[in-house]
């Protein structure tokens, strides 16, 4: 185990403790400590993993976006009110979209905002609003004591560690970056048209299958709705003469 992975382990351990403290609990004091620890672990990460970006401004923009994304994601899982969770999750999605845009993946970025933030999360918010939840959700009242939190934080830490190590190895192998980007057409001026061409020529079958799946889901949802409308308690749809 060399110095870098030792450092990584320490940072991940710190982050894990921070996450454990941040997850919804009865007292607020521990959550402040958790927030501070989380910030500390992010800073330590920053010291270790400075990305090889072109300029100082690019570096700053990337780190601000990354910090906002991660911070919002942590806030999303540590809120007790569902509405706040949804709002923080939305901010996290916006951060992700900005990071994608930063990397030049315009379509993915816009699709993230339009599909996740614009459609799915709005639906969540809709449901949450209509349900008017007061206080804690049922799953928070069932107590597994601290085991569940610790297990969740541990899994998150392990996942992040593995990903970081894998990406680190990927970055160390000499990849000729410029030709790769040219091949991917990410930086091509008409990359949307090329993206569409790729999607509807190479991956046509997948697109069609996904479309059929969505259609089936749609029809299924409507049929379930119609059936639930004819539940025994409800009045019959047509009066018999």
């Amino acid at each position, binding site marked *: 185990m060399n110095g870098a992975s030792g450092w990584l382990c320490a940072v991940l351990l710190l982050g894990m403790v921070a996450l454990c403290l941040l997850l919804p609990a009865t007292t607020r004091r521990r959550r402040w400590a958790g927030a501070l620890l989380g910030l500390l672990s992010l800073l330590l990460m920053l010291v270790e993993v400075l990305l090889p970006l072109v*300029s100082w*401004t690019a570096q700053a923009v990337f780190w601000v976006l990354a910090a906002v994304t991660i911070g919002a994601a942590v806030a999303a899982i540590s809120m007790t009110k569902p*509405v*706040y969770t949804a*709002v923080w999750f*939305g901010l996290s999605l*916006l951060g992700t979209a900005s990071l994608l845009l930063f990397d030049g993946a*315009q*379509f993915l970025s*816009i*699709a993230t*905002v*339009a599909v996740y*933030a*614009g*459609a799915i999360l*709005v639906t969540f*918010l*809709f449901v949450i*609003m*209509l349900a008017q939840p007061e206080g804690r959700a049922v799953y928070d009242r069932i107590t597994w004591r601290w085991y569940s939190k610790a297990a969740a934080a541990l899994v998150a830490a392990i996942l992040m560690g593995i990903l970081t190590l894998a990406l680190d190895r990927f970055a160390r192998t000499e990849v000729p970056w410029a030709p790769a980007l040219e091949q991917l057409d990410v930086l091509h*001026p*008409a*990359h*949307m*048209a090329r993206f569409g061409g790729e999607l509807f020529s190479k991956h046509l079958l997948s697109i069609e299958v996904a479309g059929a799946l969505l259609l089936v889901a749609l029809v299924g949802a409507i049929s379930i709705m119609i059936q639930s409308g004819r539940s025994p308690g409800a009045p019959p749809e*047509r*009066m018999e*003469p």
Partner: protein
Amino acid sequence: MNQAIVLEALIKTVIVIGGLATGAAYLVLLERKMAAWVQDRIGPNRAGIPLTDIRLGGLGQPLADGLKVLFKEDFTPAHVDRWLFTLAPVLILVAAFAAFAVIPFGSVLPVRSAATGTGAPVSLVIAPGVNVAVLYVFAVSSIAVYGVILGGWASNNKYSLLGGLRSSAQLIAYELPMGLGLLGIVVAAGSLNLEEIIVRQAAGGWYVLLQPLGFIVFVVAAFAEAARLPFDLPECEQELVGGYHTEYSGMRLLLFLLTEFLHMITAAALIVILFLGGWHLPGGLTGSTDEVGWFGALARVVVLVGKVFLVIVVFMLVRWSWPRFRYDQLMSLAWKVMLPLGMVNFLTVAVLEQVRWAWRLEGPYWTALLAAAAWGVCAIAVVLLAVAAPGVADNRGCRFTESEEQTG
């Protein structure tokens, strides 16, 4: 070079935001004046230059209104969710401004841009050459729904919540026909870039002539997305007091009201850019090439802004001419009328474009013929719709219709 890019974008941003805020303020005055004209009144005509007796026909009214709102108490009721109550107006305003990052307000200036380094002329759009501009506008306008929902929910008030729910359902429902109306444009222009779409129209004819059905669908959906009068259910005064901003006052209310006008400007600008040729004006005032002098460049800005202004006047005329939809009518219009029309439009455009491409039908005569075909499909679709009448809703109770059938 890096600083030049940032500086150029900043200057454009300042111009756009300043222009939009001022424009929105004067649009409020215009709307009040038009309301007065439609209703045979005089309208606001007192406020002029401050501290003098010069009235200027009421041109000082926006300033007076702004000051009044600024100095009013920004009251936070005791029962609201403080954080979200403040977040909602800010969020909705930011989203409304963000849409203008990709909306051009002219063509190009005959100045070599220092930013790009290639010596290309300065584009009159904050983020030039964005490949997904149309989708970006859609994504950002879907963020605006959050402001409405959160504002309605955080107010902790029945009317606000109902307004927020209505609004979000309406915005989500009309995003679909809006997208379908737009797909035809994307197919025909082969690009999602708004500047590129204008250039294509300058070369090959405005899309309002080539895709009439798409124009109808898009304009109706744009009215609904901007929540202008036939579709202003989110805040209908008679039923919901003020909808999702019932509980707001002072500065935060101003943000909501400003956003409404910004949404109208966005919708008008999109209609002009996508269907009415942008800065293009037939008759040689503005050509289609990028090589323009100062006169041409400024004329293009004037033409584009003038067209947007005219569309906004139409928006306001509609507001004072039509009554409001009932909620079920609104939804059946979206799902039973506009959605099928949008699909018909998309299919028509796809077939016509394929025909044009396969047989290489270039030139004005073929274009006119294809446009005539599109108009024919439009007429047939509208007639079929009138016959089928899917929008006619019989919402009397079940018992009444039954007894009517039995008696005769």
